[in-house]
């Protein structure tokens, strides 16, 4: 059957038309690069997403540090990961790429800081 996808891998947001049978991609049209097909294939078996949010910092001037994931995680685990992130409190100094949670919930992605926070 025919299904439409908007690829979210890059800002191009290619609108892809895919011929699928069950969870197999038969053919696709509309992708500007090879990642488009990989995206559709992944969407069919186990949609993956990245999230960005904030972690509490015990600091007078800057109360939050922004964080994101190093790898995508299953879409249906987003809120589980959010709950883990909400439990964390950090103290300055914090540097970009500092690992805040290693391998969160065993999903093969770290949570890393995306901002420097000075003492």
């Amino acid at each position: 059957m025919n299904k439409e996808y908007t690829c979210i891998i890059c800002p191009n947001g290619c609108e892809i038309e895919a011929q699928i049978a069950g969870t197999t991609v038969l053919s696709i049209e509309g992708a500007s690069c090879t990642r488009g097909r990989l995206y559709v294939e992944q969407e069919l078996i186990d949609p993956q997403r990245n999230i960005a949010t904030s972690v509490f910092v015990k600091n007078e001037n800057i109360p939050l540090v922004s964080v994101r994931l190093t790898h995508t995680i299953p879409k249906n685990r987003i809120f589980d990961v959010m709950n883990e992130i909400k439990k964390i409190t950090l103290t300055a100094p914090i540097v970009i790429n500092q690992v805040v949670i290693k391998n969160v919930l065993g999903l093969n992605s770290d949570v890393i800081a995306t901002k420097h926070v000075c003492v």
Partner: protein
Amino acid sequence: MNQVYDVLIIGSGVVGSAVAREFSRYRLTIGVLEKELDVCCETSGRNSGVLHGGFTYKTGSLKALCSVEGNEEFDQVAAELDVPFKRTGKVVVGFTDSDMQSLLKYKAIGEANGVPGLEIIDRQRLEKLDSSAGGEFAMYSPTSGILNPFIYTVALAENAKQNGVEFYFGREVIGITRKNDIYEIITNKDVYKTRWVVNCAGLNSAKISTMLGIEGYTIGGFKGEYFVLDKKVGKFLNMPVYPAPGPTGGFATHATPTVDGNVLIGPDSALVDDFADYGVTSPAMEKLIIDGQKMFKHVKREHFIRNFSGIRPKLINIETGQILDFVLESRTEAPNAINLVGIESPGVTSALPLARRAVALLREKETLLPNEKFNPNRKGILCFAKQSDEVKKELIAKDSNYGEIICRCETVTKAEILQAVHNCLGVETVLGIKNRTRVMMGRCQGGYCETRIAEIIQEELNKQATEVLYGRGGSTMFTGKVRG
């Protein structure tokens, strides 16, 4: 509370605040009960900001007497209270023969009321006075002017406070009883006792009047909507431009410059039931554009910054529908109560003259001793943006908070905001700071500075995020922290 006040004033709009200030010239314990969380939240803050000349009111009426008196003294008042005021003059313009008849009529009334300098002028003269004004001819009123009604009310209230008056915010009066010559004023929070009551409740003045035992007044709420135009076009308008009154009197949509350089277009007029609904409506907005363009040729959609509305508390004769004069009285049904009902336009212009007449009513019954410590002068918050570069440098050197600009659109510094946050009335809302400093009034409408204002309020007043209020009671801005 157990204290028995000498005087309690209900309402802290421009009239209540003026009454408080005038009464504070005497040795009296005075309190003001205000239902909102700041002064000037209702009618007093929602109008054209005009100091009226006094030519549209019936000769001998309170409206006429008080507006002419208030107009004459305002240079001195503005100096004492340190409030912005420009005696710009005003033109009332016309296009048709019946407009001319109307202008001649009001010129005659004005002269009978003692308004100086009124003249009928032609298009040529009108162009010279204000080239953006519409109209083929006009009546020119040189004594009219513009002011900031909010700052004026704040100044009156602060001066009253400095002279000993206490202000109680968030107190809505829900009942009044009288026992042993003492009034008990029951509010939604607590009960106050006083020997004298002054009703300055504006839109609710008929309601309070009934609670006092003086029945029979009906307030008709006439809602008027306004647009605020960008300062970019403000520089084209020198003075208020009003249309010649129609057969029912009263002014339709006009164009008014503000003391800060914006332009107000409005108001229209529609009778409403709900005195608490200041919502602005689409149909009114469309009409304001059309009517506004007749008065001021620079009215364009792209210059609109925001809109707002006010509700005029007109005292009406329920049988004839006629609009009545101000009521300022003391009646036997309510001994020691001074009743002000139906104070709509020219309420701002008339505020101090009305206040003095209220004092006179009390003086009829009691000897008033002067308050030796009374100081008529009050200092406002210095406007950094208006100072010369030299003065700016001095200010920053004295206080580095003048070197931190919080509101970029209006160039308002942290020093000014701190003064507003720590105002002597104890007002703690975001709108309270906005109205005292002009923050959030520019093009971005707080897009840049609102987050900082909220932060300053929390820091300076030791508040949690959930305690920060926008304006009214219950106007919580935030649901809590994101983390922690």
